């Protein structure tokens, strides 16, 4: 991980406010837009120097909350105090604006696209009346930290997503504010750029004693915050330090290895269950490991052969979030209570997994052996720029295939070629046996496509949308009606048929869009970032629907995603880099390859994290990365690495660290692969 030089001189003027007062204090605030309640009785405090996170899906109320703190949106009730100033009028809001910076939501949307990187920075500096003498060194420093110095003259519109967000951060910091409010700075940004962004932010907070209020839709970013609030439809579900929250949740995760039939039983007893090949993951309400294991054993039944293997681990924040959401959701997802006989009754909405879902591996071949998708050296040039470069991969019927890659790696272009929207410059893309270049209407009716942009008609109801798309595909009235019913069942949309699509939460909308893409019973389905902005429960249900489609109907599914946790759920992954497919394997294989190549993942907890990071890098762990408040390193020999880590920390005068071994995630795989490829590309360019 480059660019973590911590020798940043303080660029902020001396702090002026009272040391102990919270920087932000919200008490019982509420906000309504017309009939919609956006923020409902939220109270929280952000202390000086904290990195405070607001976590939630679209529509959780994060943006409204942040705008109120930034003084650009009036609240309806409650009190908002920033730097001890009560923000209750436009005039009061003006009093704090010199001391804060606000970066609104949207990838680079607040930048001026026609202006260059430097012109954007200079514009913000002039708005904030930063003197030339202050500006020059500060700009230089921020450009170096964000590694944008080489792109000073590039127009903002020509930057990648990650670079835009870094430029946005520089512009927000150019007047050396004490508080920065960043609204979803990492949404839509690829994992490598995301990790980079957090590392830069951590350094800035440390170096400049900044306070930051940051929102994110990615739950796996939660561990990066000093303190956080989990938000859902305007309310705070949980608030506190991440570790405390997890400890106080009274939840345990049970990893269960047992017969498929027994695993299927678990779904009937626990609201949160996930099944992957031969194993189940269950979230159990329990205060200690013993009782958690007992509850799982009871649910499995006593007559299991061989005896199931159960491993209990602490929950992560997503488990906690989902548990709280389910508690809110009421009857639909309440945990089943034991009846008079002390037995658990199946939850009425938690139907047992269908038989075909119990199988571990996807059915290998459908339709007599033709591949659903067969990309052979697909290439696409835009002028002198090669967006997709000889990409080859195969997707089978019944398989969920993930196409991963940073922004601009060529994923969307590849999908457009395979759906016949864009002709390839070279190579062949076969879908359902036909060459997409020559394929006419007939083949287009055999594929389903759900684009990145939300493609439903927001003024129409759920049922009207379904019937419209059925009509567009030319189904008869009767067919249309029965397929619409099928789509409602697939997407768990019962009870919402008459609601306008525009008023549905993101999760439901995405499942409706999925249903619309499937009305004509396509054999091959393309999904471009289908779960962006969807809450965790919504995402899990969406994946449930995908798995049913693949396993029960044998539909081939090709999708792209930025959620690395979702990459783990794919049957097979192709990783794209600079238009090329650089890896094509199952998630397990990819992880095994990384372990064989670089060793296992060690998580190092040491304080203060940034100093520890510098110490580890100096001590030979050049690729150590910051992950929240912890550090991740890869090593073949854990014991030997442990000694080296302790030596390195001691050399920097730091206390010994706690080191635990962790399982690799797809995010680790992705980041290590991409960084290695970037380094190789850089070396080639230098040579």
């Amino acid at each position, binding site marked *: 991980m480059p660019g973590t030089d911590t020798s940043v001189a303080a660029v902020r003027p001396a702090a002026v406010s009272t040391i102990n007062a919270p920087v932000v204090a919200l008490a019982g605030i509420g906000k309504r837009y017309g009939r919609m309640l956006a923020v409902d009785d939220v109270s929280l405090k952000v202390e000086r120097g904290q990195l405070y996170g607001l976590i939630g899906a679209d529509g959780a109320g994060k943006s409204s909350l942040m705008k109120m703190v930034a003084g650009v949106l009036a609240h309806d009730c409650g009190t908002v105090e920033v730097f001890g100033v009560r923000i209750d009028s436009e005039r009061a809001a003006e009093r704090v604006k010199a001391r804060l910076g606000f970066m609104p939501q949207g990838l680079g949307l*607040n930048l*001026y696209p026609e202006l260059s990187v430097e012109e954007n920075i200079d514009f913000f500096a002039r708005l904030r009346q930063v003197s030339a003498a202050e500006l020059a060194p500060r700009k230089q420093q921020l450009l170096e930290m964000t590694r944008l110095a080489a792109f000073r003259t590039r127009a903002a519109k020509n930057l990648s997503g990650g670079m835009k967000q870094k430029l946005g951060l520089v512009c927000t910091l150019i007047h050396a504010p004490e508080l920065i409010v960043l609204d979803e700075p990492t949404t839509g940004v690829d994992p490598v750029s995301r990790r980079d962004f957090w590392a830069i932010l951590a350094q800035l907070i440390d170096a400049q004693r900044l306070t930051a209020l940051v929102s994110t839709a990615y739950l796996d970013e939660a561990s990066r915050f000093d303190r956080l609030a989990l938000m859902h439809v305007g309310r705070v579900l949980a608030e506190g330090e991440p570790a405390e929250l997890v400890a106080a949740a009274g939840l345990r995760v049970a990893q269960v290895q047992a017969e498929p039939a027994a695993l299927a039983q678990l779904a009937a007893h626990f609201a949160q269950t996930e099944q992957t090949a031969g194993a189940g993951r269950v979230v159990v309400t329990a205060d200690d490991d013993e009782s958690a294991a007992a509850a799982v054993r009871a649910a499995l039944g006593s007559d299991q052969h061989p005896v199931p293997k159960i491993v209990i681990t602490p929950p992560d924040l997503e488990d906690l979030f989902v548990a709280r959401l389910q508690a809110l959701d009421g009857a639909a997802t309440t945990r089943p209570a034991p009846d008079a006989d002390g037995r658990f009754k199946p939850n009425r909405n938690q139907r047992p997994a269908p038989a075909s879902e119990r199988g571990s591996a996807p059915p290998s071949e459908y339709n007599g052996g033709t591949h659903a998708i067969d990309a052979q050296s697909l290439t696409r040039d835009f002028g002198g720029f090669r967006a997709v470069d000889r990409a080859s991969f195969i997707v089978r019927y019944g398989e969920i295939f993930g196409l991963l890659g940073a922004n601009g790696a060529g994923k969307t272009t590849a999908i457009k070629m395979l759906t016949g929207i864009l002709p390839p410059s070279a190579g062949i893309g076969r879908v359902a046996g036909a060459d997409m270049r020559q394929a006419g209407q007939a083949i287009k009716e055999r594929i389903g496509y759900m684009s990145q942009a939300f493609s439903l008609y927001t003024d129409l109801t759920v049922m009207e949308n379904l019937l419209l798309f059925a009509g567009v595909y030319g189904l008869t009235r009767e067919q249309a009606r029965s397929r619409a019913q099928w789509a409602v069942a697939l997407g768990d949309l019962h009870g919402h048929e008459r609601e306008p699509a525009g008023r549905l939460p993101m999760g439901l909308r995405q499942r409706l869009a999925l249903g619309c893409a499937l009305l004509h019973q396509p054999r091959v389905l393309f999904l471009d970032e289908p779960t962006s902005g969807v809450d965790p429960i919504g995402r899990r249900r969406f994946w449930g629907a995908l798995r049913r489609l693949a396993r029960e109907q044998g539909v081939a599914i090709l999708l792209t995603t930025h959620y690395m946790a979702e990459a783990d759920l794919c049957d097979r992954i192709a990783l794209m880099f600079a238009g090329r497919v650089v890896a094509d394997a199952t998630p397990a294989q990819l992880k095994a390859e990384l372990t064989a190549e670089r060793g296992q993942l060690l998580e190092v907890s040491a304080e203060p994290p940034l100093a520890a990071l510098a110490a580890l890098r100096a001590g030979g762990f050049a690729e150590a990365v910051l992950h929240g408040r912890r550090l991740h390193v890869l090593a073949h020999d854990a014991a030997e690495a442990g000694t080296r880590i302790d030596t390195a920390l001691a050399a920097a005068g730091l206390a010994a660290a706690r080191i635990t071994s962790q399982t690799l995630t797809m995010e680790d795989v992705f980041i290590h692969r991409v960084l290695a490829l970037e380094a190789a590309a850089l070396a080639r360019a230098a040579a």
Partner: protein
Amino acid sequence: MNLARVLALAGKEAREVRRDRLYLLLAFALPLILLVVFAYGMTTDVEGIGLVVIDEDGTPTSRRYAEGFLSTRHFVHARADAAAARGETALIDGRARVVLWIGPHFERNLNAGRPAEVLAQIDGAFTTSARTIHGYLEAINAQTNAELRTETMAAGGARTPSAGLVAPVQLQTRFLYNPELRSVVTVAPSLLMLVLLLVPPLLIAVSVVREKESGAIFNIASSTVTRLEFLLGKLIPVVVIGVANGLLLWVVVIVWFSVPFRGSVPQFALAIVLYVLATSGLGLLVSAAVRTQQAAIIITTITAVIVATQFAGMFAPLETASPVNRALARLFPAADFLAIVRGMYLRGAGIDIFWPELLALAAYAVLVLALAHALFHKRTTA
């Protein structure tokens, strides 16, 4: 081609139209508004036209002759100061459209059986109206002649020599400022009014609303920039562009359309600056009210076209419009500016005559900008 699909798409459109208020307004309210507005605005009737009578004869016969015009609903009597400039000042400052000159010896000539000469000077700045006015004058004059003939015959026929004349009163007409009644002379300068009512508001409204849409407005809202600073920052470039446009169009009208400019260059330039300030202010008002660029474009365009063609006196003089239309016209700066265009550009009038209009434009600009400032907020409620 599949009819089921066509019906599916058409059905969807119908539903969307029913639920989208802006679209519904465009679909049904707009046609109604256009019909009513244009029906009233485009009538070519000419009524209540100011008429100055310069009666150098001053006899009962000449007075009766003039009365023949003023007794119709088409003309009203406009009083002219002295006969010095033969009433032309009344045409220049726009109080009258017609000057009727009845020469000396009017009565004596008639009685002597000689043709009596009358000269009508018509303001040619309104081509269509000028033609209509010309028609009315001819018709009324013809009727007077017929009456004169009947009277002389009834009085004893051949005893008076004028009885032999087909047209005892010979009416000569002249069109001032536009002798050939070329419509381009009227239309081209007037289009300055329309174009500058359309373009600056469109530019400024879109540039503000675009930042609202993208969220870049929050850069301003969350900073220490004041509302006035922001609005001036938006206003200055648009006013510069608008004034540059105005000057360019001015040159094109003179050079390409060969419409001679008769006024004072700095005075007319001042009028353009004030007008552009006022119309840009209107654009800021629109930007305070709408959230999308589409809405901004539709509202500024439709307003500009309706106001310019119907409420500014473009095709017919404003004084002939209904009181309601005249009141509506006062809501916009277009009528004042058009009066200045006609007066300064075509008739060569100066600031001594049009200072009230210039003052009105300046006041309008200040008022609209103050209103825009009051409506723009950095801390909003939605």
